[in-house]
């Protein structure tokens, strides 16, 4: 690192540089912050796993990896992720084709429905489906047993299949959105000329459309794969009771069971490395796939494609889509909403069984819940603001200053994107619980640091997008008008990207508000977050209260999304 920095300065002084002083300061500040928040935790995981004191020691790692229960967790993780990816991709493709290329009606309604899974954390879905399909207590299963008079449930959600189903419901929009946007940007004449040349409809889809959107499919599928590999909430809620573990839930269990002892954290760190290896392998796979298919014929501007007439299939297709979307999106939300008003879980869903008591309890009496709401609001707002400014600074350095070493900075800032939240949490514990003289364990600050590290990639991407719109001559014009570098940033660049910054803030605020994976390892007695509180209440069996609190969270998230939409709409005026 030292060599790297001196090297950079040498180059600066020997050669033409566009900006002076301030830029180097920003570069170094970004670098230092990223090294401390992102690189240190990851390095610490590696060090703690492979070193005992200062000595290289593989035993812990091999011991942890070869433990039978951990092996089965690895197998489960890969199996679930693989199945979720396959089903999610197929589902996403199907809807993408229907909306992008067919003349199916109600496209607007369907598109709006698709954005809903995006807004809510998948573990809400797991809770909702558990309410319906838990083997004995689920409402749907109970109804089924009543009708058939038997004792075997219709479906058991507490299985690998159940986990795959719920994750698929939440992750298929990744492929859907990627492919729809690729289809919209694709030059329709490519398909039309094949039709004119005499190719049939199905042939065109197979030989022209599909290969052209392959990169988009691959990108979306990889997003699903990585998200599922590192996912905690759904397997935690559906798997624990049936002893089904994945790597993230196993890591959580290891650390939770050891009650924060050092040995437990070390074991968790070893498993984390395994998880990272799996994710990196998936990313590598993505790079291979994307490399083979790069087409420039997909252009930036959108064109009106030729729509395929569904004719007789129109009504059946529409019913299938609407029913499936209804089941995937609306039913779970409704279940959580209605159960939140029940006097007790298990009572029939009748009007006389409804009550406001759950809300009174969680919002009025439970200190823990009130704390969690305050904590989550504090964490989301502060991490949103801090991370957004950090993202702007890094993006500014990468895009406008372009120092030698910007590649390193970029990689550092995008690294958290591929590091599972639970792994990041362990790294943060290792760094900030006294190893370097600062002990933040059990305080809210350690969660804040983890959030910043986790969301810096979002902020950086969003800020890059807006900064790239600001041509360098706008800043230079200010300089030649007599503004110093700092003044040109303050008067010109920042005001121009302000709408992007506000949108970036919400892109962090919203996921932070419902965050579970990282906070579940980092919370202390007084620093529960909203996600942790819902998860904890639900695990304790207080299903109705958990549902009520989840409904509150849904309300906050919806309000935030509406605000975001309003702001991004305003932006067009600029």
């Amino acid at each position, binding site marked *: 690192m030292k060599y790297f920095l001196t090297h950079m300065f040498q180059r600066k002084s020997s050669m033409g540089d566009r900006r002076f002083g301030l830029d180097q300061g920003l570069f170094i500040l970004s670098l230092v912050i990223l090294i401390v928040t992102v690189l240190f935790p990851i390095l610490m995981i590696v060090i703690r796993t492979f070193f005992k004191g200062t000595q290289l020691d593989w035993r812990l790692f091999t011991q942890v990896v070869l433990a039978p229960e951990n092996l089965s967790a690895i197998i489960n993780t890969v199996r679930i992720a693989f199945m979720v990816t396959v089903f999610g991709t197929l589902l996403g493709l199907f809807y993408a084709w229907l909306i992008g290329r067919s003349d199916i009606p109600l496209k607007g309604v369907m598109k709006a429905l698709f954005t809903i899974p995006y807004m809510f954390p998948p573990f809400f879905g797991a809770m909702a489906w558990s309410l319906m399909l838990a083997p004995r207590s689920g409402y749907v299963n109970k109804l089924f047993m009543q009708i058939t008079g038997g004792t075997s449930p219709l479906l058991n959600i507490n299985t690998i299949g159940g986990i795959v189903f719920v994750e698929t419901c939440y992750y298929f929009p990744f492929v859907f959105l990627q492919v729809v946007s690729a289809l919209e940007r694709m030059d329709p004449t490519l398909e039309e000329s094949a039709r004119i040349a005499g190719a049939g409809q199905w042939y065109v889809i197979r030989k022209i459309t599909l290969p052209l959107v392959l990169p988009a499919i691959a990108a979306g599928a990889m997003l699903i794969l990585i998200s599922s590999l590192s996912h905690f909430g759904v397997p935690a809620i559906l798997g624990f009771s049936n002893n089904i573990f994945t790597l993230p839930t196993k890591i959580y269990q290891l650390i939770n069971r050891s009650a924060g002892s050092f040995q437990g954290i070390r074991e968790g760190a070893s498993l984390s490395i395994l998880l990272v290896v799996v994710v990196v392998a998936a990313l590598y796979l993505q790079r291979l796939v994307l490399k083979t298919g790069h087409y420039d014929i997909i252009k930036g501007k959108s064109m009106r494609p030729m729509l395929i007439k569904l004719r007789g299939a129109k009504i059946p297709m529409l019913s299938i889509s609407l029913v499936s979307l209804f089941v995937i999106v609306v039913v779970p939300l409704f279940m959580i909403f209605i159960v939140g008003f029940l006097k007790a879980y298990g009572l029939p869903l009748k009007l006389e069984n409804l009550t406001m008591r759950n809300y009174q309890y969680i919002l009025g009496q439970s200190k823990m819940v009130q704390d969690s709401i305050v904590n989550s609001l504090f964490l989301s707002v502060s991490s949103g603001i801090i991370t957004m400014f950090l993202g702007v600074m890094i993006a500014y350095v990468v895009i406008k200053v372009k120092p030698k070493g910007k590649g390193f900075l970029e990689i550092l800032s995008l690294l958290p994107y591929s590091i599972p939240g639970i792994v990041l949490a362990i790294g943060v514990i290792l760094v900030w619980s006294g190893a370097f003289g600062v002990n933040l364990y059990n305080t809210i600050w350690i969660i804040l640091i983890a959030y910043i590290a986790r969301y810096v990639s979002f902020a950086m991407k969003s800020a890059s997008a807006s900064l790239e719109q600001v041509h360098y*001559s*706008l800043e*230079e*014009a*200010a300089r*030649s*008008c*007599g503004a110093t570098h700092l003044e040109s940033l303050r008067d010109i660049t920042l005001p121009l990207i302000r709408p992007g910054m506000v949108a970036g803030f919400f892109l962090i605020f919203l996921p932070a508000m419902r965050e579970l994976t990282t906070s579940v390892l980092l919370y202390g007695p007084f620093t529960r977050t909203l996600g942790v509180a819902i998860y904890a209440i639900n695990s304790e069996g207080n299903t109705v209260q958990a549902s009520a609190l989840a409904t509150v969270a849904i309300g906050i998230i919806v309000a935030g999304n509406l605000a975001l939409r309003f702001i991004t709409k305003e932006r067009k005026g600029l």
Partner: protein
Amino acid sequence: MAIVAMKDVTVQYGKNVVIEGLSLEVEKGENLAIVGPSSCGKTTLMRALCGFIKIAHGEISITDTIVSSPAKRIMVAPENRRIGVVFQDYAVWPHLTVIENIIYPLKKRKVNKVEAKERAYAALAQVKMSDFADRLPSQLSGGQQQRVALARALVSSAELIVLDEPITNLDATLREEMAYEIRNLQKTIGVTVIYITHDQETAMTISDRMVIMDKVGKIRQLGTPEEIWTHPTDRDVYTFLGVSNFLPLVRDREQIRLVSKTEPQTIGNTFFDIPKSFGSNLLLASRPMDIRLSPLPETDVGVVRGVVQRVTYLGNQFDYIVDIGGHEIRVQEDSLEAFRRGVPEEGSVRAVEFLSPSLYEADAHDSRFVI
């Protein structure tokens, strides 16, 4: 007095040398056009002058103050150079209104508010944009945005303004109008203007002096538009200025012969005062408008003969392609003149007369000399 002096300036990006050893002086109050093909380093030169990039070698001074000099470790920041700049993409700030855009430099130079407002409105009036003071740039056309950028540059500096390809994005009529207005403003205000463009026609119409740069960032010629048009220093400058014909000639003692693929032709050498240093291979350069076709005279000794290959009527002029001994040249003639003198028919043989041609020494391997 020179307001800008560049001495032996070298600019490089990494190992890539964009400008090497360039020296140039800009006189106070003049309008200097820097002309050259795309990516020849014109914009780099402007950016070095404004202080957006460091120079690797040499020295730049503005009104006798050194602003860039790596040897003396001087690098004056852009904001302290007091140069008004009009950028290629105008760089009018989209979040500020027109008048806010123009007041900004005055605010930065700590001019008091009342005076700043007065001066900004005055500048706006100079570019005839008074009615648009409270508009946002997104509500203006390209030409209007450019006027705003010009007004902002004018209030930013009353001494020196640099315009980087300012009117290339405008359509032809607007371009002509703008060029005329820039010229007019410069004459009335007396500000020094450095005008960077790849469009030699506009440069000719508005500049006092022109600098012709070549592809590798070297100055090929410096002079008034008339000097450059009538005496381009070399073939590249000649070609750069417009459509040109080059005919290969060979000097044979006192005679000059046209290198011909069909029949040897001798042409009258009365115009030429051939420098002694020139070798025997020469190129005769001429513009399409400076060539006259006439019916063959009785005695055709010393007359260049050409066969008219194609006649195209362009409305205001006729465009001919004429074959002279296997070399095709383009000739243009004013329509009225052509009708008066008789439009030549395709296939007819004409006497070709070159009015004020230029003569250049040819390379030894010029393919035109291969018969």
